[in-house]
């Protein structure tokens, strides 16, 4: 088990009170697992990702623990986290341009970075060059400034630098969102390759694009309004989602090669609730077509089928009697989540 997050709560301090962006989130990631984190904007997915590596000033750790490789990760302590950043936890930011220092050559910048982590740059230099080669960049990028590289090259450079010290956990926040399809595919396949080669042990890929996650992730965690909605292997989430929110999210994705003249897709009406004073009970109930009287209570996040956890009263009702049969059906599809 690489990462174990237990009842994590993160708030943003604002003048009007605390915005509870991550509200009691527990999950774990196995070795070699790529976990996708999906949801609408404002559901807390980026906050969750950021909190694991760098808690901004306005973010407050309210409660909960994070365990990485069996040891506690002191996410609330900026200085104590410094020992873990890049070595144990690393991040690939969305905008590769802003991640690279424009006034330093790539090699020099990397050297500074590695030294600041107390490692010897000369020792990793060989490996650095090998990986630069591996992602199809010329060796002389080390002697280039960021502005000399194209967007795709910068993205790859950033990914190599982020994973240079073989971190246990890599967090990728919307790294494929702004790219066009061919580059998107290249980056996605690179992530998988990095995992397969053991450059990183496990990964959290944050995106709102479920179709990208269906390509690269082993398991998908869907968040809604700061809470977990559903977690299962990616094939289960895509083919057999139980939470109405996941179902509607998937139902709103157009696909190439289908005609929609007769049956247009529908979006999800409404907006996610404000997290300043989150509603009681199920947070999705105002937008949910299946909401019923029980939804005023908060649904627990429970395992309804092996490896398939959902927080929804309706899904629980539907699956409660058939739980034993469903278990045998769901079993083969859910290996990724609970290995």
């Amino acid at each position, binding site marked *: 088990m690489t990462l174990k997050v237990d009842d994590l709560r993160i708030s943003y301090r604002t003048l009007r009170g605390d915005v509870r962006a991550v509200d009691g989130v527990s999950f774990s990631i196995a070795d070699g697992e790529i976990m996708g984190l999906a949801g609408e904007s404002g559901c807390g997915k980026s906050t969750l990702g950021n909190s694991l590596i760098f808690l901004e000033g306005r973010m407050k750790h309210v409660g909960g623990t994070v365990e990485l490789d069996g040891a506690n990760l002191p996410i609330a302590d900026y200085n104590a986290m410094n020992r873990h950043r890049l070595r144990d936890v690393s991040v690939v930011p969305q905008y590769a341009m802003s991640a690279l220092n424009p006034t330093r050559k790539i090699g020099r910048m990397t050297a500074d970075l590695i030294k600041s982590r107390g490692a010897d740059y000369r020792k990793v230099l060989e490996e650095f060059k090998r990986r630069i080669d591996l992602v199809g960049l010329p060796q002389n990028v080390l002697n280039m400034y960021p502005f000399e*590289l194209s*967007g795709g090259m910068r993205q790859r450079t950033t990914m190599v630098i982020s994973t240079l010290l073989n971190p246990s956990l890599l967090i990728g926040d919307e790294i494929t969102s702004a790219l066009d*399809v061919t580059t998107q*595919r290249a980056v996605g396949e690179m992530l998988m390759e990095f995992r397969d080669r053991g450059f990183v042990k496990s990964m959290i890929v944050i995106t*709102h694009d479920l179709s990208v996650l269906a*390509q690269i992730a082993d398991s998908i965690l869907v968040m809604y309004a700061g809470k977990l909605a559903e977690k299962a292997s990616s094939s289960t989430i895509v083919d057999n989602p139980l939470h109405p929110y996941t179902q509607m999210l998937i139902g*709103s994705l157009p696909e190439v*090669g289908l005609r929609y003249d007769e049956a247009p897709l529908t979006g999800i009406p409404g907006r996610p609730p404000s997290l300043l004073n989150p509603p009681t009970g199920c947070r999705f109930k105002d937008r949910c077509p299946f909401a019923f009287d029980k939804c005023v209570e908060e649904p627990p996040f429970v395992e309804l089928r092996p490896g398939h956890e959902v927080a929804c009263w309706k899904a629980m009702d539907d699956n409660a009697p058939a739980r034993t049969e469903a278990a045998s059906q769901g079993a083969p599809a859910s290996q990724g989540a609970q290995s």
Partner: protein
Amino acid sequence: MSMLEIENVSKVYRTGTFGGELKLVLRRVSFNIDRGEVVSLIGQSGSGKSTLGKIILRLSPLSAGTINFEGTDIATWAKGQLRDYYRHVQGVFQDPFSSYNPLYKADRVFEMVRSVYFPKLRGQQWHGKIESALESVSLNPADVLNKFPHQLSGGQQQRLLIARALLLEVKLLVADEIISMLDASTRVDVLNLLVDLKRKGLGILFITHDLSLGNYISDKTVILREGAIVEMGDTQKVFGNPQHSYTQSLLTAVPQLHRRWAGGGERAPASVAVNGAANSVVGGLTPAHVAKRLVDDGALPDGEGGRYSQSSLHPAPTSGPQKLLHTPKAPGPGPGPRPSLMDIPDQPWQRRFGFGAPNLAAVLAADNTQPLVECEPGHFVAVEDDL
């Protein structure tokens, strides 16, 4: 006669230190948009798709070719009379957050329209007009009027901008990536709205890099690569039976829910190679493809184009079994050492400073983009070269 007729439009941007470099970003693009038709313009970043949108909106002049709107060449509208053109042709852009002034309330965009186009309209009539426009984009006036932009969601903001366009007798809407900043859950609503407007007779140029969105909404699809159309026709034909290898490779790269990327293939799709080529410079600098064509024509010995042989158009032979990516080397300009100011072949340094810069006509004449071939009725494909 179509509503909008785009004929052989080329566009050259002037770049470089003192404007000494000319960059051909659109090559003889021709297609039509009819009333009540959605045409999606699909291309990678740098393919020139937004440039074409800007040209249609008269935000940027064209270098060659003509665009006729309802039979009139749009270049003939004088600056002072453009408002009559904008009465019929409007645009909505990618980033809704930067389309509003955060200091003012969002419905100020309506007031701007009023002051220019309807200065004499009374309050009551004007309100009726706004309400009917908001209704046609399915917004509740109470939800959006009198609010600041930050109080509205991205989807609401985009719909408000579309409503603004509908206040006028708009016939053509240029929608430049209007969906890409929106969440998956609100995207579909905006898309369905465009479909509704189309049924009411609005012509829409839908510019996107997302093939699945183009597939969802459009009647006709135009696929642009390096500023030239590689394939166009009815959406069903282009997506169902793609003829050009570039279209095919784009389609295989689309992430889909129920089908994983096939293969992870060893064959590098040509599309990726092309990514950086849009940055090639025509004219004074020897661009990779011109160099290549000269080599092919025997005008240059093979080594001459050497400086550019690293470029994306000539992916270095993929060697070694340990290739990580299916992509070829480095899409993008300038892998390899940057040529210094003084030693660019065929590019005396004076030229970089604008002395004796290549003239526009020469650049346009050097463009040998061939007309498209009709492979089946209503389905046009570019002749594939061996790039």
